[in-house]
């Protein structure tokens, strides 16, 4: 069933981008595509949010970038996760799971 793409919840984008990059080095456009694929088409990230998110992660030192040639020989900037980025990702994943669980309890609960 086709779904209408939606933007991710505010505040979540950084976590998602970090996860996407952790899979393997990827350029900016690729990150967007991969995110769409990994969310099975639910999340459509517009680049107006994507690139600032990448810059935020760069600024915190969780990812680094380098210029490399793509398969077609075009120069592109690739992002790669750092050690501290991986630690951060692990932390945020735990945090996220706890939240989701908690939200689930609340929504299912009867008080």
């Amino acid at each position, binding site marked *: 069933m086709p779904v209408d793409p939606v933007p991710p919840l505010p505040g979540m984008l950084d976590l998602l981008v970090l996860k996407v990059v952790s899979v393997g080095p990827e350029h900016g456009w690729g990150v967007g595509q991969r995110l769409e694929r990994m969310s099975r088409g639910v999340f459509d990230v517009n680049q107006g949010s994507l690139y600032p998110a990448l810059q935020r992660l*760069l600024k915190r030192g969780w990812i680094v970038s380098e210029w490399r040639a793509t398969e077609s020989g075009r120069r592109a900037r690739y992002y790669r996760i750092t050690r501290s980025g991986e630690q951060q990702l692990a932390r945020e994943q735990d945090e996220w799971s706890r939240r989701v669980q908690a939200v689930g309890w609340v929504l299912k609960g009867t008080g």
Partner: protein
Amino acid sequence: MSWIDGLAARLRMLFRRAKVEAELDEELEFHLEQETAKQRERGLAPDAARRAARLELSAHARLREEVRDEWSPRLLAGLRADLRDAIRQLRRRPGFSLLAAFTLALGIGANTAIFSLVRGILIEPLPYRDPAQLALIWTSTDPEGETWLSDREFLEYRRALQSFSSLGAVVDGEVNLNEDGEPERVRAAAVTASVFETLGVAPIAGRVFQADEDVPGADLVVVLGERLWDRRFGRSAEVIGRTIRVNGRPRTVIGVMPASFRMPLDYRQDRSSELWVPLAIDETATLPWGSRSDNVVGRLAEGVSLEQASDEIGRVTREWAAAGHLGSRPERTLRGALPLDRLVLGAVRPALQLLFAAVGVVLLVACANVAHLLLARSDVRRREIATRAALGAGRARLARQLLVESGLLGALGGALGIAIAAIGLDLAIRVAPTQALHARDVSLSLSVLGYTAGLAVLATVLSGLAPILELTRVDLGIAMGGVRGESAPSQRRLRRVLVSLETALALVLVIGAVLLARSFSALKAIDIGFHPTRVLTARVEVSGDGYAEPGRVEGFYREVLDRLREVPGVVAAGATRLLPLSGQIGSWTITTDRAEDAGRDDVGADWQIVTPGYVEAAGLDVVAGRAFAASDDIDAPLVALVSETMAERIWSGDALGRRFHLGTENQPWIEVVGVLRDVRHNAVVEDGRTEMYLLHSQWSRARNGGGPRAGMTLLVRTAGDPNGLLGALRRVVRALDPTLPVSEVKTLEEVADAALAGPRFTTTLLGVFAGLAMLLATIGLYAVMSYTAARRTREIGVRIALGAGRRAMVGMVVGEGLRMTAVGVAGGLAAAAWATRFLRSELYHVEALDPATFVGVPALLLLVAGVAAYLPARRAARVSPLLALRDG
């Protein structure tokens, strides 16, 4: 490490902004290509695909902006916006902005100027190695006076004292240089070779004296000061090794000392020594214990304290006294170690500290005033602020914006303040007591400007604080919907506190200034014993082979004075060894004709040497007997004049015809022929001096031989402007001896004025600061009263409409102003009662709690406050009730 990664990335951004942005552009271009390709795959035409992609990549520029925002620190970005805002705000009301900035500039400028003095004089170490270790052997009861030791005492101290690693002796003087250009007289000193080592200052060229050069016979060498070297020898390196004539004697130049170098005692003179010759002491001879002319400076040995050194000096000295070497003058045994900085800064330090505190107060008043202005304005901006707050601006955000505004004012004030400081410093130096100032580097240096920047920040915070506190407490409902014209009660309270505070601070300064002014006028009223108006003075010292013959020196001065008396306009002419109020006169042991004085050696008198005509030229008053006459010449009977105090102390007032002689040996008797009114010689404030006046022509005979006095100061009393006689004076001297320099040309009035330079300096500056504080406080009060009166116009209109009299309304507003002032006056009086104790040492004939001042100044302040409140009150009360009501 995460934060290091982050920091590295940030630094990269900071330094390579252009490159980072180019990378971003390239990245987005790549994105566009990929997106276009993707759209094409979906079947769109190339053009349409690209258009769609571009649409998605809409607002490329905005994206760039957003990405950049991620990098630039948020605070900085916000500050930039605030700064823009602040500039706009200040520009909108240039009158307000200028007034505020100028007020701060006055405070900051005055502080900067005084700080330059404090830094240059008090903080900057004296230009010696380890200056804290230097001390002088000094009479401990009289640090402001002079202490001379004899060569013998110097040698004995050097032998006995363990507390000092080295000791050096300095004998002050002046010399004539009459080769290589105009004859010139320069301050000079004879010093032991150990002096340079003791002070720890190296020459900039050549060398200083060696240990074997301060003995008679080997001493024909000379060290020059850099300025003299520059002035007379054009900084030529070849002058080293050359022989020059100093006071007619040939000496070999061996070195040059830096321009910053001073002999310690130079700091007390208005000119510094620029040439040094060895003080040749014959250590093999048996030297007399008396004959004192040396100042002795020493470097404390490792680990020895001043107290220990003082104790040791005292012990050694008392041993000498017990052995009978020091005669029976009790003060001679009271010697100790005087720290060098105490000698140099003695009177200057408390004065500067006082002024430093005073300018601090001025700055506080200025800040309070600017706070007023900002408060008044913030009232107008109440709605704007409330709107911003309603739209979600946080308190911190609002405070920051206000702080940026006052910061801008502070920066403007600081910049303007530097200009004011430059002018102020120039003026301050002009009225400054010369000694310590001219010798030190007082300028608006980099460190001073750093201080200024600090002051600007301080002023920013101080003046911005009140409005910030106030505005961030704005109540939205009142501010937006309330009646225009009412301000929050808390704000009115804050204003009243500020006015009271300003008044109190200003009152303290004005009281201090009035006390000093009263003290100064008391000093000015002191009868100094001579009449300094319309007298020109100049120093001459004969030197060279032409004066070796007996009577030649005396003849020269008689001739010079005779010729000067013939110059039209000259009323009287004379000469003296030492002008009053221009140096310490010193005492000479005498023996009187009183029976009880026989065999005593503790009777002394200040020794003044003058020519006939001196009494008339200086305007001394003859109390009894006569002045010297032309007939009192070199061969006539020995005669003397004495001061009233001397006549009183020694002969119970009946001195005429009585006799005394110099020293304790068999020297010829001198008869007293006249009594002169006491002259203040060493200082304006001093007890009457035991002073004897001997004739220049008889000086040699009075001492049983010995040389004549070569250096004398000429005095010419005129009917008109004394400065007009300078040319004639030079011509007369040159006609008699073209090699003689005429130096230290001053009017006697300048000499007398210089004696009060210290109090004049303090009084003038404190007066300026107090005036400034009072002006600012008055402006503050006026501003607040104008504001309140204007704000209460509506209320006043209603009251008048209901039948209240206009006068009552004026009274109401003025009463409010006076109440604020009265609170300040009460606080200020309490503060002044405490603060004036620090003035006590500066006051002469005025109590620190002088009742007249403590009543008069507050009364004056209240009067000024009344006027400042009355003007706006009258304006408000004049308004037509109708107008007031409609406008409200």
